[in-house]
């Protein structure tokens, strides 16, 4: 009777970005499984994107076709491409930069970037575009590298190795810039996925503070930027991103400037009403630069998931008081914590700013006199700090 609620973790789309990321993670020999309960199988499936069971997806035709059918947005207007190049270069002249472009499609932006002297790696999963992209790179001394991502693909560790990308320490600069468009349907999932990568320093973030320049829907952008001033949009995702990254809005562009292609490079006309509605919206190009100061003594890739859990749980009952949540988060005395972070007893979850959450987490994490600081964590018992 206890039928799987969700079955396997929802798979991510096949966009080059997520594809690469997933494989990275897998390459990294991932991760901890949540075997909290032997009864997991009864249907309490786990969502931890980095935990996809294996490289097996290539074998599942039904899934592939489903994903393949999903239309994808591409930049097709040279004007837009030109603007973007200006924005991305940020006024600096002729600094050679490395861009990783995900699903460039017809390659309009790629061309613009190349013309401005940037080095570009184009990851494309759609075979149709490959020949054209490759033709762009002729006579450019290898400034453009085109990689066709197809399942089964190599692990991204190998991909990066092949491309000769070196990891930079976290405290140093930005090793590369990723540019792309979030998948239409799975923005939220992709954002969560990236968060996991970021906080655990895996996937692309293994190479340092990779800067993302991504198009995202305006709605989602507003959610990302939300704080107690607009509590309705405020959510765990906002807190986690704002804590992790500096978020800058670079450019806004109406939806209509993009073309939608289905698989095989077919131009798709917006037929459905919903997509028409979406057309009214803007896409925002945002820059997500991981903070140098993200990791501290108390918030590390080792315990980030406790932080994640704390936020998820807090925002589940967002209008409840912080103190009520503390009781089911940690055995540490709730009043003590409140005193330490200088919050009142009546403080609600939605009154806390992202930095407050980080402070709260670190306060609990470094509280003395408690052998066990969190109720959630299931590998606490093995932790020796």
């Amino acid at each position: 009777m206890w039928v799987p609620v969700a079955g396997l973790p929802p798979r991510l789309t096949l966009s080059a970005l997520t594809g690469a990321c997933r494989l990275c993670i897998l390459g990294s020999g991932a991760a901890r499984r949540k075997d909290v309960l032997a009864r997991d199988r009864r249907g309490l499936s786990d969502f931890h994107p980095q935990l996809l069971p294996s490289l097996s997806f290539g074998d599942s035709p039904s899934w592939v076709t489903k994903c393949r059918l999903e239309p994808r947005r591409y930049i097709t207007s040279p004007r837009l491409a030109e603007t973007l190049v200006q924005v991305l270069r940020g006024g600096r002249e002729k600094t050679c930069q490395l861009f990783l472009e995900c699903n460039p499609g017809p390659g309009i932006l790629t061309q613009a970037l190349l013309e401005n002297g940037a080095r570009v790696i184009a990851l494309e999963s759609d075979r149709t575009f490959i020949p054209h992209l490759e033709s762009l790179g002729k006579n450019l001394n290898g400034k453009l590298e085109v990689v066709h991502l197809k399942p089964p693909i190599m692990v991204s560790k190998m991909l990066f190795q092949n491309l000769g990308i070196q990891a930079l320490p976290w405290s140093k600069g930005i090793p590369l810039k990723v540019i792309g468009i979030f998948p239409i349907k799975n923005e939220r999932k992709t954002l969560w996925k990236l968060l996991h990568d970021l906080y655990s320093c895996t996937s692309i973030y293994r190479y340092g503070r990779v800067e993302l320049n991504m198009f995202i829907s305006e709605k989602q952008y507003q959610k990302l930027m939300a704080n107690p001033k607009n509590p309705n949009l405020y959510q765990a995702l906002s807190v986690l991103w704002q804590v992790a990254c500096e978020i800058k809005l670079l450019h806004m562009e109406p939806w209509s400037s993009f073309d939608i292609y289905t698989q095989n490079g077919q131009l798709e006309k917006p037929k459905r009403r919903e997509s028409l509605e979406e057309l009214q919206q803007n896409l925002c190009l945002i820059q997500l630069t991981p903070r140098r100061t993200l990791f501290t003594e108390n918030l590390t890739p080792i315990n980030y998931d406790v932080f994640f859990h704390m936020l998820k749980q807090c925002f589940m009952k967002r209008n409840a008081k912080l103190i009520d949540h503390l009781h089911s988060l940690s055995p540490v005395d709730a009043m003590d914590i409140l005193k330490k972070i200088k919050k009142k007893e009546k403080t609600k979850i939605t009154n806390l700013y992202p930095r407050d959450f980080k402070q709260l987490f670190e306060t609990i994490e470094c509280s003395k006199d408690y052998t066990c600081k969190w109720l959630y964590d299931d590998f606490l018992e093995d932790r020796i700090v």
Partner: protein
Amino acid sequence: MSALRWGRGAAGLGRALWPAGHPGLLAEEGALGGVWGRRRSSSASPCEQDRGKDWGHAELLEVLEARVRQLQAECVSEVTVKRVDVARLPEAGGFQPPRKAQPGATGAAPGLSGRWAEKLDKEKWTMQKRRQRLEAKLEEQARKLAREQQLRVEPRLLNGQLAKSLQRWEQGGPRSPWEEPLAQLLQEAPRRLGCEAEQAPADRVAGARLESQRQRLLAFLECCLFTGHLPLAHHVLVVQHSRSRQQRLLTLAMYNTVMLGWARKGCFKELVYVFFMVKDAGLAPDLLSYAAALQCMGRLDQDAGTIQRCLEQMAQDGLQLQELFVGSPLCKEDQGVLLRAVRKARPGFSPPPRPKPPPPVSSSPLLREIYAKDRPVSYPRLHLPQKKLEGLFQQQLRVEMATTVTVESVEKAPRLTPEVLRARKTLKGLRARWEAALCRALQETKASEAQAARDGRPTLLPYLCLLGEREFARLLLQTLQALPPQGESLLWLAQQLGLRAFNRHIVQRKLLSNQVRELEKRYSQYLHLLASDAQVAEPCLPRQHWEALGAPEAPHEQPWPLPVLVQLGKQLAELLVGAVRMPSSLAAPQGPPKLIPVLYHVYSFRSFRQIGILKPHPAFTQLLAAAAERTLTFEAAEVPMLCPPLPWTSPHSGAFLLSPTKLMRSVEGTMQHQRLLERCPPAELHGALDALTQLGNCAWRVNGRVLDLVLELFTAKGCPRLGVPAPPSEAPRAPWGRLPPDTPPARKAELRRELARCLKVAREMQSLRADALYRLSLAQHLRHRVFWLPHNMDFRGRTYPCPPHFNHLGSDLARALLEFAQGRPLGPHGLDWLKIHLVNLTGLKKRESLRARLAFADEVMEDILDSADRPMTGRKWWMEADEPWQALACCMEIARASRSPDPAAHVSHFPVHQDGSCNGLQHYAALGRDSVGAASVNLVPSDLPQDVYSGVAAQVEVFRRQDAEQGVRVAQVLEGFISRKVVKQTVMTVVYGVTRYGGRLQIEKRLRELSDFPQEFVWEASHYLVRQVFLSLQEMFSGTRAIQRWLTESARLIAHTGSAVEWVTPLGIPIIQPYHHDSKILINGGLQSLTFSSSGDTSQKPNTLKQKNGFPPNFIHSLDSSHMMLTALHCYRKGLTFVSVHDCFWTHAADVAVMNQVPPAPRPRRESGRPLARALPTWDLSLAIVRHALLGGGAAGGDPPDLGAQPLPPLPPPALAPAADAPSPGVPRAVRPSAQPAHPARPVQVPGEAVLLRPQVPESLQERLGLPAAGHAAVGAQDRALQPGAGEALHLLLQLTPGVPAAR
């Protein structure tokens, strides 16, 4: 009544008169008001509004008044008196005009005059008036409250006419003859009959919700009856009845339930009220309603006339008096009273004699031989005498009455250091405190639930009253004890708690209803059949004997509906969370200890859902670990039985003595299997009942020597290679010290991964360890005893032992711990069989003949003896075997036997196994007539046993070589890596519908295990290999895939028509696939809302995908289990000890040869490890099943899927599909008589008509279904000619297009 009113009025008024902010009085008020609970606040609210404005005046007024009096009378005491008077005044005076109350006051103050006095007077008057109004209001409310307070007895009828007549009779006074209205009532025809039926719920969802509400209400009423809350049940019924909107919730069963309750109490008035309600609801009283009425009359000793009228009315309604005594589920006592009443009216009446059950003959032709009376039988007996068995029965009875068993753990005892002792003491103290706290909390909950029930809602109150508070508390503490450190999902806990409460309730109920003594008597008589020293007149099966000993048991208790179960469990879990607390610091209690909860309710996030988890406080886990207590507590039904189980006689009765057990286990809340079994004619189930009884009747004992060795390893460091899990201390530790402060995050991420890996391993080890701990502790507990493993089956008919932790179905280790309690001399060939068995266990010599195996065993005799003598110190030959522990046990047995002076006389307890070779494929090969395939799974006689896995591996190798020659890279890489082991799992599971996806995963796993395989090729190679395996199978078993596809397609079509796929196995077990779309049940409130979805809800549409994919494997499983049961029954007839692990059959070494001859069927004599006999019945079974498959089996009562109602999407409408035309299974044409001997020399000579499957399918359909073109058409035609009827069956089965000629 009036006193009450006075009290309340006074109190209410007093409160109103007192100024605001008078805490003392208010507190008192609270105490008083507690009686009428929630109402208080509403009644108080108007006063409170006014209070600020008016009560200042009132106070002044009163002071003045008092002062005047004081001046006049100079008497202090009078003040109080007067004050009381004032308070009481309006109450006593009722509606007296305000002026009348005044004179005393005005008269008392004559000296006052002028405007001030006038004003005072006026104010006083207003005041008085106000007071009066208020008083009236209060009184009205008080009266209302009193009404609320009392449980309602009189119904409020919606039908005006009925209501009037009710009123008339009520006014007739309490002495009026209540039977009068009843009789008249009965005569009135039901007016709104069937109006409920008309308003069929518009949509399915609403219908399902209504149904679940009904279930809950009915269960509530029934439970009330049991716990003595009958007035409450009546009250709730009346309240629900009076709300016209909710009336459609009520069913006749609910009214009947309450009526029965009143009848048992002999309360006629209330019974009549219910009758009024039944009429008012427009329902027609049925047999049970009349039974209740008559019973009540019987108890009250009514005169004959009334009873006579009642009986006449019954006859008019078309209900037979006789049926009251036959069909109704009344207990004996009720029936006695009923009979007394009836006899009064009809003195000569005698209840019809309980009809002797017709000679129990199962219609299954396969079973004819089993139940044949004319042939000699030699049923086995146990080796124990009657006295001893009776003693064992008493032991088991005690265990089950206690509901739990405490078993000593085999974990090494800790040194009793002061810390350990202190921890134990603390724990003991805490437990005592918790028990008290839980009892208190339970009482409070009961009070609040009672309050809620008064509002007319079905609440948990009666359920909470079923068991004593202490018992609940103990149950909860037991759960707390067993909670793992990482917590447990609330939903699961709730369900477990609910189930356990239910089981305890059933046991208690049986104890209370005096069934135990009856059981004792009957059981002792039953033992005459089994005991070694007793006699019975006529040899018969245990079930037959049990049935002959008396009437069937009292009707079983229906399980509670799932929502009720979970709700109760959740309530209990919440009690546990709320009540159980411990001091924040256990070590040094300074000052008053601060209490913190022991259990926390936390969330875990899975996907985008969150799951509530109850988690013990880490300090509590530490405390438990520190105390290292050495006892484990099991439920009584989790432990093997100490006496032979009760024989299965119905879908509900059998196995454990008191604990309820289902014949067909299913996920909680799935009802369709039970319903199907209940509808099935009892005789049809005999095959299954007898087979299960027989499997359960095998007596077991623990193999002490093996247990000793295992325990030695277990308490030391374990030995994962041999399946003995290591203790947690052996878990890998992450290499982790204090990190230098400048560790880069990437390094930390790596550490985290390492940590996670260690944690994972540790968790796995922990769960394996716990599992082994349970098993070994139970084995130790049962070491010197004889015990039994009662069996039941899953929904496909596969059999399983009921006790979950310790049984013969487990791993190698688990199996090696068990041996037959009953010994048998080895006989002339026993030792040889032991040796062959040993070689089989080693996994060597898979493709050798029995003779070769025997020779091999003799060759390694020295190793065998060495293993037996010095298992841990010698050459350890046994450790290399596939099944090391069983091999070791076998070595020991061989050593003992061969060293005894006369091996043939050596009494052996050792079970020898005969394993099937890929049974699934055998069935398919038989169904599909694959000659090559049949040969490879040993269906065809051959000198050497075949091994299908090697065969497939060889075939794959052929393909690989071809590809390699053509330059396929992966094929070249794979050279030398294709082995039996790589393909085995995939081949085995293909039958059960494994897809390429899953198959690839399996192969990938195998390839990863190969250390020298280049790992970077794993993905590609597994992908390649799975394709080749499927291809090879296709080549070898050409029919298999086709049949699988055909079955899948049929299931898809059936599911499309909106029915679940049903069939009846050849032994008559009705089977239905419980896969439907999920229905969600929500339980609100409390800690968290629980949502759970159930796929077994038959009101939902079937889940086509699951129905379709599940059908082929389920079907094959059902075939396989039928085969096993049949073998079991034949073996029993021959007096053999027989048990099975699905397709692996166990018996004594001396009897292996006999078992291999069973069931007697045409079978070439051969000496192979895989007796051909094992496969043969499937040829016969095939058609019998296939015929019923997809038709739902008319005989078993399951409605055939309504294929006729709606054209199947891809097929033209069937020409005919009425269920009535379906061939009855009673007609024995399905089974080919054993006249046609299988020819040893020729390849498969298929006698069964199953083969007709293919010839019968028209070309067009064949194409669509992908069946290979009919190569056997000629054979089919022949068979058809030979066997009239078979074609017809198949025609029905296939639902062919109209153009296909139906064979006659």
